[in-house]
């Protein structure tokens, strides 16, 4: 067995496999399928300062090799999370991270400050890239200035590992990544979903309640892989790669492209046990290729 220990900022994980926000609930939903101690970390559902109902139904449209969603950050707010959800997940045998979202820099900062108080949450992932909410979300993530403003505000309020999740719906993701790095982020994760649309030809209607949604699944993998490669070569902070990872080979490709860790998202819907299988598969790959440590393959593309 190879050494899979992974460090992102001050966050230490048993392996580089994490589960993406909004695809793994609060972890407990998957305990019948996955031994959570075999997964590096789980990032729980996007949490905001105030409760949000999210967008109306229908929120999902299936595509070939993927799906669109416009859930819109439905959650019961950070106070509910701290009082009712945190006590039920704080002792899970894996690292539990919270994905934080907001509609103003102050919102983000206050939400992050509340989570900073929770002993067993070692890191947050800042969502400046949700394509499904009108205010905030992606609005901050599409310009270097907007991204930096939010990250600076949160950096002052949040003392632990700060990961910033980037949007692919931009002209230059490396410019955003560099701005986020300069503003004090400890790591970046990418990509969030790609904005898309679905139409029912027979009924001549939009299939999603707000018209557009975020595309995820294997369909986005090549785009994600390219962006992870570009960002990893532009920034000094660790990069967490996600976007269509469905098996260990996909995960290894992201590590080779320069990601220090990876997140599994939509694939959890197809195989609820996939996160553990990917962690085991990465180990198998390392052993088969004679590597002792997962660090040895990060960015290790040959000419």
């Amino acid at each position, binding site marked *: 067995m190879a050494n899979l220990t992974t460090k992102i900022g001050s966050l230490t994980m048993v392996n580089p496999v994490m589960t993406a926000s909004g695809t793994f609930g609060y972890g407990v*939903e998957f305990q019948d399928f996955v031994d959570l101690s075999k997964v590096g970390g789980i990032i729980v559902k996007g949490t905001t300062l105030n409760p949000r109902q999210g967008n109306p139904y229908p929120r999902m449209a299936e595509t070939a090799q993927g799906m669109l969603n416009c859930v819109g950050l439905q959650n019961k707010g950070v106070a509910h999370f701290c009082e009712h959800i945190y006590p039920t997940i704080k002792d899970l045998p894996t690292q539990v991270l919270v994905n934080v979202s907001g509609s103003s820099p102050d919102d983000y900062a206050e939400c992050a400050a509340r989570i900073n108080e929770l002993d067993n949450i070692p890191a947050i992932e800042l969502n400046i890239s949700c394509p499904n909410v009108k205010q905030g979300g992606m609005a901050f993530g599409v310009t270097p200035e907007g991204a930096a403003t939010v990250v600076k505000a949160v950096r002052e309020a949040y003392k632990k590992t700060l990961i910033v999740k980037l949007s692919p719906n931009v002209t230059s993701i490396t410019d955003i990544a560099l701005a986020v790095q300069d503003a004090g982020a400890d790591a970046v994760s990418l990509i969030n979903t790609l904005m898309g649309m679905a139409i029912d030809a027979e009924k001549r209607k939009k299939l999603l309640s707000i018209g557009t949604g975020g595309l995820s699944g294997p369909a986005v993998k090549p785009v994600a892989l390219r962006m992870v490669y570009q960002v990893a070569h532009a920034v000094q902070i660790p990069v967490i790669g996600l976007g269509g990872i469905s098996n260990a080979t996909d995960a290894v490709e992201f590590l080779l492209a320069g990601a220090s860790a990876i997140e599994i998202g939509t694939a959890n819907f197809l195989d609820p046990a996939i996160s553990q299988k990917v962690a085991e598969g990465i180990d198998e790959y390392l052993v088969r290729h004679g590597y002792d440590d997962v660090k040895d393959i990060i960015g290790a593309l040959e000419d």
Partner: protein
Amino acid sequence: MKKKFILDLKVTEISKPHPRYVLIKLTDPDAQLPEMLPGQFAQLRIDGSKTTFLRRPISIHYVDYTSNEIWFLVQIVGDGTRALAELKVGDVLNVVLPLGNGFTLPKSKEEKVLLVGGGVGCAPLLYMGKVMAENGCRPTFLIGARTKSDLLQLDLFEQYGDVFVTTEDGSFGEKGFVTQHSLLQKEEKFQRISTCGPKPMMMAVARYAKSEAIACEVSLENKMACGVGACLCCVEDTQEGHKCVCTDGPVFPIEALKW
């Protein structure tokens, strides 16, 4: 909540009792099937379909622990369900089950329960009937269809209770919709109604139940991705806000809904 499993089940029998429906019978060759409640559902993986991606949520039609068999009755509506219809005996189908909450089981043997089904919505009512019969209850089934040829498995339902039928064209049973059946005009009323079928039918049943102050629950089938309460795609707008049909449902008491 019942423990959930990911299982590779083997097709033991597959048939098309109707041009639009396929009945798939499966077994677990390696282990006893887990405990499942009537009204719960499974997520069926679709292998080898080029246009679909996600699993298909299908209600548990029938479980026989003696023969270690589970049945799914699937309406063929698109490429995913069409792929399911092409399974052959001996093929493996990967399923995640049991999911969701299930119907309310009667508290006493004397409770008068009406099970109202329409179309493929009849599927979970068969297992409900079986479990009720095992508990010493005798449900009444009321089944609605467009025409006689759309009625399936009436003999199977008759094993567990009295079966009444309406057809829209009057070719079998009473003519009209389920809510117009003479059974519902009788003096003695049912104490509970559980229904599954097309939304307009369930809404009509809910209106009837409300007007007669009968406890009523309906089984919803919103478009679903994960099936385990993680993605929040399948939400129904309830009196308490958005609820996941996959975990808070699929069965909801009508007073919880905004119908």
